[in-house]
């Protein structure tokens, strides 16, 4: 007989974490105790996208009581080295700007003070003298000849370019019946954790050692980057992580420049320093996913079979190439053929630098940018050839029975049966019913579309994939890099209780639950008998450069390593128990908290008693049996080899399969999309905890929904950052997120100890193209730009407007493009004064002083150049600004162009307006004006919704005042001002 066992793995056991998290007892970064003398750090950030730093005056900030230290880029540089850059290029990457700022939000100075309040007061007292440089925002414009260069030492904005060729793509294209192409501009976004960055740093001058606690998530290769930058050996940078995480999704990899800054601040201030990032800082300057311009062509046979792909990718990594970038571009390199059996591939990869925030890890990491063009292209092939999209997918899938399958670009697809999983999804997910729903909706005149997409979800990254960015020669010189070392320790204490530690940092994946399941099963123990410690400490714990929590490696790699460590201990415990039970070791079973004889369950010992033997009576262990106190396993899979000389790379160990389909209806009244059905089929290998797998799928789906319809880190043409609040960076909430139908197909991975694969990122890759394909199906649209905002949907859904015939009451406003934050407007005013009199007023400082809103005096520099101090604002939002105004294109008594720049604490603005004067019927002057203005800095980042109206208010005030002035000269008939006000209200 056998001892009955009920395993923990594979069941949705209650999460160990939840009791604390749901009752407010989480221990997040900001909750941790700090030393009593800890000071607080605040960071001054660049208000503009691109400028030379002429000077930073910190004297007033230093003098503020409660301030301990003020540091600029030069001060930081004196204590550090530049951060390591992942490509061979002549650039320096510093955590704080030195001679130039390159993106809105780039740190330029920092203050350490008794409180964050005082530190922020001190930031207000720092005077920045910036000389603006032309901003480079668009990645293609960055490559244009004559484009402003961000890093003069590099001489170009193209920091890396590589071309790849696999199979014979030229012959395939030459021989193909069709060449079908798509162009995609994938936007910037982020997965936006609830908890922002946080760091507490301390410096011990006696040992020249830093001790930092940060909600960093890994990879711990970044520890090396920080130690090198801080100019200490690795053992003098002790990096610890808190027990709980308020989410990361990759984003908390990007904290490392702040680890360096906080450590340096602590050294300068001579005390521990704490920095907690606020939401505005996080949105504008933590890390974004990359935006990418992709031109993708397929060589296609008449039946839709794709024989070759030609990728041209321009990756925008922002202002600095921060480690591990350009990894976003190379993470998918082995998977550039998606789920398809395509043997010929050409790839051109260019990495460009622009005046935007640096990029880094983000859930999906390169997948969304790559699958959106690929899966939109597969639909386009169906459209262009008059085929069913589903058939095009089916004809190209990697066939059943082909696994393990080596892709053209080098990935080794570990396991799966894609056609079978797809067929199961169609059946279980009700695809036939969905087709009927679409037919019924369309018969009623409703806008309804179906979308499809497939994806391979890679997990457990090969540390060596990033070296594909180097040429084979460069790689040969640098030596091979590969692997994915996972580290786990299982320990037993003198009372026989089990503790698990792993070199991974939880971000909500339920580490403590899953590891307790895995180890509990190994020892036949209940969940509660195993305790998992998820804090990491590089000074005490075993770890490797690949440690951390990224690339969906927890279930496959980390939990597998824990299983191996537990199994090693179990083998020894079995030997000890066998001796005590007087049986052969192969008869020992672990179940129900006991270690027993398989053939005679009454012959048993409590697990704890056997487990404690190694502590209490080490001399009694059987000959040749090692201690059972602690076992650490370092696991790396053999399949993760270094890139080959032909640039083939197995970029990830595991490859899940996803097939999504959905129905989307678009409301004919509002243009708003509604997801009617969403079905997502996953093959993620062995499922360890079904509830958490479902949570991963739902989370990825919600974030993909954000990327599809809501979220963008939008920049103005001038580089102003426009999404600095969660009102302007709208993430879908539970109200906007429908329930996806989640299906599973199970092909265990032969390459991981538990058969598990990653599942955390897949829907970030599959869902945007699936939803966009449905919108295309509903509307007939060819090109879709994400996010599909209401304005973009309106253009797809509503017929063109016919503006009413203008009666000449107001000039038409200049066309403004949706989403662009160049403000434009136009208006007019009628005044009683003659043209010449109005002209004189516009050129007279005294008049200007009277009519510029909030002017505190106007200084004439030349006849056409004025300076003023002005208070501008609407409602309670007011601040004082320095204004610089110039007149040009002067056409005497007929027209003049006013251009101006204002700068103040809340931001800066620049604008240009053309004023024309003409005679009014019946006397007086008609003043007409058109303006364009750009607003930058904090006010643009957090007040975008109101800028248009605010500009109108302020400019309207100017012309109201001008009209009052012109009417006040005696020539105006009574009641003019009232009429003017009415007019201005209507037109301004």
């Amino acid at each position, binding site marked *: 007989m056998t001892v009955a066992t009920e395993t923990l793995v594979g069941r949705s056991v209650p999460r160990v974490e939840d009791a604390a998290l749901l009752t407010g007892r989480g221990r997040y970064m900001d909750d941790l105790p700090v030393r009593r003398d800890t000071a607080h750090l605040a960071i001054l950030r660049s208000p503009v996208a691109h400028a030379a730093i002429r000077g930073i005056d910190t004297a007033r900030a230093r003098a503020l009581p409660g301030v301990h230290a003020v540091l600029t880029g030069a001060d930081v540089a004196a204590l550090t080295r530049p951060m390591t850059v992942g490509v061979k290029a002549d650039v320096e990457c510093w955590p704080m700007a030195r001679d130039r700022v390159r993106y809105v939000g780039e740190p330029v100075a920092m203050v350490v003070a008794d409180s964050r309040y005082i530190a922020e007061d001190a930031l207000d007292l720092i005077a920045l003298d910036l000389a603006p440089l032309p901003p480079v925002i668009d990645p293609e414009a960055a490559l244009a000849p004559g484009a402003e260069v961000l890093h003069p030492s590099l001489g170009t904005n193209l920091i890396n370019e590589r071309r790849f060729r696999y199979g014979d793509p030229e012959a395939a294209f030459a021989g193909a019946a069709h060449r079908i192409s798509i162009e995609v501009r994938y936007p910037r976004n982020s997965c936006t954790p609830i908890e922002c960055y946080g760091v507490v740093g301390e410096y011990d001058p006696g040992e020249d050692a830093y001790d930092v606690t940060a909600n960093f998530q890994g990879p711990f290769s970044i520890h090396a980057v920080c130690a090198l930058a801080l100019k200490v050996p690795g053992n003098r940078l002790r990096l610890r992580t808190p027990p709980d995480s308020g989410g990361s999704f990759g984003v908390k990899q990007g904290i490392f420049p702040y680890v360096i800054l906080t450590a340096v601040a602590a050294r300068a201030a001579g005390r521990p320093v704490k920095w907690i990032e606020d939401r505005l800082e996080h949105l504008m300057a933590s890390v974004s996913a990359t935006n990418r311009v992709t031109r993708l062509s397929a060589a296609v046979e008449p039946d839709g079979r794709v024989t070759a792909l030609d990728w041209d990718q321009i990756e925008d990594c922002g202002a600095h190439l921060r480690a591990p970038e350009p990894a976003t571009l190379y993470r998918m390199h082995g998977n550039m053929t998606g789920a398809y059996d395509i043997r010929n591939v050409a790839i051109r990869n260019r990495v460009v630098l622009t005046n935007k925030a640096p990029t880094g890890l983000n859930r999906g990491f390169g997948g969304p940018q790559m699958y959106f063009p690929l899966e939109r292209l597969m639909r386009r092939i169906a459209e262009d050839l008059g085929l069913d999209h589903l058939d095009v997918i089916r004809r190209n899938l990697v066939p059943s029975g082909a696994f393990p399958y080596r892709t053209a670009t080098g990935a080794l697809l570990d396991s799966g049966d894609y056609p079978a999983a797809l067929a199961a999804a169609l059946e279980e997910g009700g695809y036939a019913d969905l087709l009927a729903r679409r037919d019924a909706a369309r018969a009623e005149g409703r806008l309804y579309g179906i979308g499809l997409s497939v994806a391979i979800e890679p997990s457990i990254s090969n540390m060596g994939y990033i070296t594909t960015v180097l040429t084979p020669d460069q790689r040969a010189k640098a030596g091979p890099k590969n692997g994915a070392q996972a580290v786990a320790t299982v320990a037993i204490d003198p009372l026989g209780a089990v503790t698990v530690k792993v070199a991974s940092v939880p971000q909500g994946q339920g580490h403590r639950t899953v590891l307790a399941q895995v180890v509990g099963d190994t020892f036949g123990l209940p969940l509660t008998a195993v305790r998992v410690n998820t804090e990491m400490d590089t000074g005490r714990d075993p770890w490797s450069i690949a440690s951390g929590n990224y690339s969906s490696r927890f279930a496959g790699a980390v939990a597998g390593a824990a299983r191996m460590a537990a199994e090693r201990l179990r083998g020894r415990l079995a030997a000890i128990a066998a001796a005590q039970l007087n049986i052969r070791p192969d008869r020992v079973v672990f179940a129900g908290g006991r270690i027993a004889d398989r053939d005679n369950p009454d012959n048993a010992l409590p697990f704890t008693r056997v487990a404690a033997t190694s502590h209490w009576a080490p001399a009694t262990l059987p000959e040749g049996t090692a201690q059972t106190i602690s076992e650490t396993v370092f696991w790396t899979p053999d399949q993760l080899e270094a890139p080959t000389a032909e640039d083939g790379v197995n970029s990830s160990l595991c490859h899940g399969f996803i097939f999504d389909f959905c129905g989307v209806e678009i409301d004919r009244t509002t243009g708003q999309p509604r997801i009617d059905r969403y079905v997502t089929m996953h093959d993620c290998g062995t499922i360890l905890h079904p509830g958490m797998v479902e949570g991963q799928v739902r989370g990825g789906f919600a974030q993909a929904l954000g990327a599809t319809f809501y979220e963008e880190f939008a920049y103005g043409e001038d580089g102003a950052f*426009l999404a600095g609040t969660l009102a302007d960076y*709208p993430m879908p909430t539970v109200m906007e997120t429908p329930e996806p139908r989640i299906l599973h197909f199970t092909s265990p991975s032969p390459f991981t100890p538990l058969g598990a694969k990653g599942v955390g990122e897949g829907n970030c890759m599959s869902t945007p193209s699936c939803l966009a394909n449905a919108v295309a199906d509903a509307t007939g649209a060819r090109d879709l730009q994400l996010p599909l905002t209401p304005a973009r949907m309106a253009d797809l859904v509503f017929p063109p407007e016919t503006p009413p015939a203008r009666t000449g009451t107001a000039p038409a406003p200049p066309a403004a493009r949706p*989403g662009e934050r160049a403000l434009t407007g136009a208006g007019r005013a009628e005044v009683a004064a003659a043209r010449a009199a109005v002209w004189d007023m516009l050129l007279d400082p005294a008049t200007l002083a009277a009519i510029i809103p909030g002017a505190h005096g106007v200084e004439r520099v030349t006849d056409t150049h004025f300076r003023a101090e002005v208070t501008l604002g609407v409602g309670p939002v007011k601040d004082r600004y320095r204004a610089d105004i110039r007149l040009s294109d002067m056409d005497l008594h007929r027209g003049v162009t006013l251009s101006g720049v204002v700068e103040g604490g809340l931001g800066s603005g620049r604008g240009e307006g053309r004023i024309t004067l003409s005679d009014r019927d019946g006397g007086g002057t008609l003043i007409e004006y058109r303006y364009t203005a750009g607003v930058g800095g904090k006010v643009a980042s957090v007040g975008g919704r109101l800028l248009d109206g605010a500009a109108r208010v302020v400019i309207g005030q100017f012309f109201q005042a001008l009209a009052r002035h012109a009417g006040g000269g005696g020539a105006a008939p009574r009641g003019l001002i009232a009429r003017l006000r009415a007019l201005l209200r209507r037109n301004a």
Partner: protein
Amino acid sequence: MKPPAFDFLRPDTVAEVLDTLARHGGAAVLLGGGQSLVPMLNMRLSRPAVLIDTLRLTQTAVIEDRGDTIRVGMGVRQAQLEHWPALPRRLPLLARAIPWIGHVQTRARGTVCGSVAHADPSAELPLCLLALGGHVHLRSRRKTRDLPADQFFAGMMSTARAEDEMIEAVSFPAAPPGTGHAFREVARRHGDFAIAAVAGIVGPAGATLAIAGVDDIPRRFALPAPGDSALDDALDGIAWTLNARDDLHASARYRRELVRRLGRAVLEEAAACRI
């Protein structure tokens, strides 16, 4: 994201509030529920020298049914009005509109008069006040005055309130018999600032449409009743008359479409629910 230093005053009486306002004028800001002002303070967009907390003036948290009008005192939170038992009967437009204001949590804090004073161009309560032809009751140490809503809203976040005045109450006309009310709004997400919010009132005297989120202030128009062939042209005229804004979330063109399409929808709905 910490505010600069300011003096915090918490008067016990309305008279003290008025004295404080008279003394500090534009340097003082009244704190209601704080749902707009506190983020502005934390982002240092607003830097008042003095913050006057009005939330302890519980004697002003009164909803008074005066027959023709419902008077809502300055201390009344949005949630309090939302749950006033007579609301669906006496102010059916507000009963429909209030659930669109932010979220349960923000309505529990935000006050009715505070929203009117803030005059956000997308806000629902200013829209309803204007649509119904309500009044704003202003009080300073010098005097009291009542302004009709259409004279109160002057521009984006700008009103006719003088620096030494506070809004003592607002009055909404009670729904007359034979009138139907409807409200709809489109936002990026539930609870976001409205891209367009539209209130429709249809009664014996004709139809009224009021629109927020499109122009810098809420705007009100008299319109032909639904069924009249002139309605579509009139809505199109309104769409072009309004100074529709472009912003990060929506284009002026989309806002005009919503004026036409939601405008028609709410008027039809209002006509259908006349009681």
